[in-house]
């Protein structure tokens, strides 16, 4: 089980965070073209690490829009 933005999803084996986010976009769970800041189990994952860090069963993942400001 993975919890993504407070919703439960079945665990998918062997995917990186980046791939997981793409799956969430494909399933229309996430409807954003913006860059995201991701936390996994309350720890911020650098936008460069999302391509390496794997999703594990039981992970709680949250995504927020990357802040840019005026």
């Amino acid at each position, binding site marked *: 089980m993975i919890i993504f933005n407070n919703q439960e999803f079945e665990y998918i084996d062997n995917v990186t965070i*980046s791939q997981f986010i793409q799956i969430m976009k494909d399933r229309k769970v996430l409807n*954003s*073209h*913006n*860059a*995201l*800041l991701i*936390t996994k189990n*309350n*720890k*911020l994952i*650098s*936008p*460069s*690490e999302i*391509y*390496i860090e794997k999703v594990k069963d039981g992970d709680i993942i*949250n995504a*927020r*829009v*990357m*802040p*840019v*400001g*005026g």
Partner: protein
Amino acid sequence: MWKTVRINSKSKTITTEDYNKTYVGLGGRGLIAQFLHDEVDPTCDPLGEDSKIIFCTSLFAGTGLVCANRLSVGAKSPLTGGIKESNVGGNAAAAFAEHNIRSIIIENKPENSNSLYMLFINADGNISLEDASTYEGMNNYEFVENMQKLYGEKVSVISIGNAGERLYKNSSLQVTEFGTNYPCRAAGRGGLGSVLGSKRIKGIVIQKAKAKTEYPYADKETFMRLRKELNQSVIESSKTSPFSLVGTASTIDFVGPAGIIPTHNFTGEISDKIDNLKSDKFMSFVNKNGKNQHPCQAGCLIKCSNIVNDDQGNFLTGGFEYETIALCGPNCDIYDYETIAKIDRYCDDIGLDTIETGATIGVCMDAGVIPWGDTHAALDLCKQMGEGTDLGNLLGQGTEIVGKHYNSNRIPTCKGQAIPGYDPRGSIGTGFTYATTSMGADHTAGITLGPDDPTDIEAAVATSDTMQHIFAIADSMTCMMAMATLGGQLDKVALLYNAMYDTELNAGDLFAAADKNLLLEKEFNEKAGWKPEDNVIPEFFRNEPLPSTGRKFDIPQSLLSGIDKVQ
């Protein structure tokens, strides 16, 4: 191949250098940091003969990547006493790129302080220093008009107004904007206009290159394919982005009611009048005589900028941004767009940073120099800075000096530079950035703002750290608005970089390069005399709760100084 042009302002010599091999693959802020690290003594007088002012185009200027025609300006800052990089849109970076110029370094200082020159790059790429004494004391709009008469309508201009000539610590460099060709884009922060002024250079004027430029792509086909994909992703995200649909002023809809916008010299008191500045009011104001969704540079697909015309339909200002509105508006109890737009125009014309100016006026109102919310008096202070009255000369030195002059105990600065449009109590991660970045209080060094801005200290510090890296990547590459999309595709951005520079980098390497950039800047500042204990947020933010949330700025000093670290 990219060129570096070196100008000696004392001997009036101009040399064109081939690129130092170790610099290939650097652009914008990263290249500025490297140059300053390698060539400038951090202990030098920012306005003295050992200082240099450097202009660098971003990594992909001229290539058609979205928002990539960005120009970085760098020097030791007279305002903060540390390294400074301030970047700007407009049409200058694209013009440099057409001439294959990646950087221009202006060094030394003329013996005769009565002389005044300007750098001219003609359509054939010939570079000369021209006598500019006729333009002494002229502000930016008039100077640009003269340059257009002399060298053609389409000329790109970087210039300083009276503020830079008078060596104000609050002086900007203005750049002509794509489309309008008015000098309404600013490399505003850090007082860099005065560094150019100290070299007795009025500006840089660039004609469009006659010859078509061929950029040195390592793999042009791959580059073009990736560029198309990245540009398309930005087009998609822009369809719903408030920055694109309204402009950066849309930020007020969130930070206004949340009490994060600076009001009444950063007291945070919320006024009902904030409604006068919300997106719908902004749209009616801008579109009454002008328009929003204007691209400040060629190749911009987001168009967060705008054109503001006066009641007669004449151009008043452009690039009318959230930061200007926040600091020159609610921070001074001014809630009408017309006045704020006029202040913006004055600042661009004289060559003043609007953030520093708004914070300075707020401090003056707090000190009783002029009444709160007095629009005429606020405009008069700007005028006085332009005219160089005694008061104007004081105000031109920036918020901190003015606050100390009036014995104010509420001076909103970090490292001598005014805090921009986000109260550090309302966005503690952004406050952490203000206190710790090498740039002085600067939101473009890494803000954490948004509906999910962490309120927990550890998360706020971690977010600030990540955003400081993201902004360092952006400052070498595109404007931040584009990074709001590209920042989620760093794998593809790395491939694009490889296709340009013949490297084999991945997303992690881009982050590592940003880390090196930040470390070079930090090292420069340490050598300049900055100490970890200087990483402070003004005391009143720790003592006074933000009215909207009741929260004080409570990140422990030991974390700001780096004595303690978050896990």
